[in-house]
């Protein structure tokens, strides 16, 4: 089928917007991160006069970036897994059960999202201190899981509601154990939701600043706390560009992997319709 001109214009427009929105900032960050410390990039140069990886090695050697990377890259997947697992029971209830006050509960679960991160962070930190809990790493992990739980609950509720009761019944009717019922009737439908919830929590955790900063201060670093240290008073754009790229790379890789996994999931297998 030939595309109509209207479609062509629309897709052209979309590509243009995406370029301006994604490619330009990304390209700029890349260029800025490659600016050599010896020669500044200033007006009217269109491109940096000299490109080098000097900034990258500088950042790697002189800051706590390696530790921060370890912290961020290990916190994010654990927060993702934790949030998905903890969200399951609530999402099951919202997606599959009818109970009194369901709408109210659904709204209440989302309320943490309107709370500014710093407010949560400050009081979460003081709660931890008054409990005598000083281990930063687990504290931030718990904090991230709790803060990002609403996203996982929301996404998984929808997934649970898509599970067909007749398929669940059919599985039970044929003698399936609860685990088998979950595997055959729930999991194929939940899979995209689990991936999506994991991805959202992962990305939000990796770029979360407020809680990591307040609970982790003064010396526990994650990639965003380093990034923020290059903004503000001691603003060094090329250094910030390096950290920003380090922040975004795992997100992009993860996105591509999950995209692959989701494509292999048969869409008809989820909806039951051809």
């Amino acid at each position, binding site marked *: 089928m030939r595309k109509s001109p209207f479609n062509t214009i629309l897709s052209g427009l979309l590509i243009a917007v995406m370029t301006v929105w994604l490619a330009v900032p990304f390209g700029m960050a890349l260029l800025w991160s490659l600016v050599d410390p010896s020669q500044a990039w200033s007006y009217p140069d269109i491109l940096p006069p000299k490109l080098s990886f000097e900034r990258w090695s500088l950042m790697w050697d002189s800051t706590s970036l390696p530790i921060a990377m370890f912290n961020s890259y290990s916190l994010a997947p654990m927060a993702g897994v934790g949030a998905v697992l903890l969200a399951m029971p609530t999402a099951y209830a919202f997606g599959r059960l009818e109970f009194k006050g369901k709408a109210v509960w659904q709204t209440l679960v989302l309320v943490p999202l309107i709370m500014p991160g710093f407010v949560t962070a400050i009081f979460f930190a003081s709660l931890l201190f008054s409990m005598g809990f000083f281990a930063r790493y687990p504290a931030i992990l718990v904090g991230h899981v709790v803060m990002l739980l609403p996203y996982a609950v929301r996404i998984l509720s929808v997934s649970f509601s898509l599970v067909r009761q007749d*398929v669940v019944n059919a599985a039970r009717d044929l003698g399936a154990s609860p685990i088998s019922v979950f595997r055959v009737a729930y999991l194929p439908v939940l899979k995209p939701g689990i991936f999506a919830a994991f991805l959202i929590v992962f990305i939000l955790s990796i770029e979360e600043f407020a809680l990591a900063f307040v609970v982790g201060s003064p010396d526990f670093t994650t990639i965003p706390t380093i990034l923020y240290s290059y903004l503000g008073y001691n603003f060094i754009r090329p250094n910030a560009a390096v950290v920003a790229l380090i922040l975004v790379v795992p997100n992009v890789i993860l996105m591509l992997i999950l995209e692959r996994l989701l494509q292999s999931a048969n869409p008809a*297998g989820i909806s039951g319709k051809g």
Partner: protein
Amino acid sequence: MARLVAEDIAVRFGTFEALRGVDLTAESGSFVTLLGPSGCGKTTLLNVIAGFLQPSRGRLAVDGKDITALPPEARDSAMCFQSYALFPHLSVADNIAFGPRQKRVARDETVRRVDGLVRQLGLVDHAGKLPNALSGGQQQRVALARALAVAPGLVLFDEPLSNLDAKLRDQVRNEIRALQRDVGFTAIYVTHDQAEALALSDMVCLMNKGVIEQKGAPRDIYFRPRTRFVADFIGAANLHRGKLCGGAMSTPLGVLHCCHEDGEDVEICWRPEAARLGGDLSGTVKAVAFQGAHVDVFVSAGPETVRLQVPGELNVSIGDTLQFSVPPEGVIALEASANA
């Protein structure tokens, strides 16, 4: 094979009584249909038998063993769902093998059953496909094969043919009945289609508003309906109400004779095909519908219109006066319905 006994089954959803004390016995190897209009409780009863719903009262037993409290996975029944409810991510063969695998049937026995059913139901070319690649009729066959693969004593059908077109429906219906005779399972079959129920069953249970209004062999139900609801639901029926005196009731069409004791307020009915041409009943032809083998003639006199089925050769036209009679053995007196 299994003999199912349900005693006094009641189900309540909030204040709504979906079932109000149903008794049902399905003999081993018999084909029982639950027939009724939507909302009569037939699917609810099926779900109680399958174990998806706990009755609020009553008792279920299979071969004398009480199964009321057993969960569906522990029962010796398998259901064929209206929506098929196939596992969309599993191939046809894996769908069929699912039940035996769950019940820990030996591997070679599972393979043997799957092969046998695939061949029996004409799915050989489709065994490796996903359910979505199949037509409705084929999916229905997979659902049937999947249910039969666990070798259940009791197979439950929830309007299995309602999503198929008329021709396919006849074909699959015959296949189901042939399989049932072959394999010998006891079948409980829910439908709202009276023709399907009459054609398939050893026993028809006609349900209305949460109770079984009448149960019996298809012929019994058709020729000896007990209540107005049954007469009206199964086939077409001409109903008259009035005083029966000396085995005769006078109607606007003339006097109808009936072998029944007299009463002040009796309801009688007769089937359209019971009418014979010529006689002392008469009326004006209001409408004619030629059906090939027979003609449906609607005859009215006064406020009443009745339907007659006469041989196809008869040439009647609207406005004619038609003389006919109904033999007394074709006229059935009805009881007042318990829950009209």
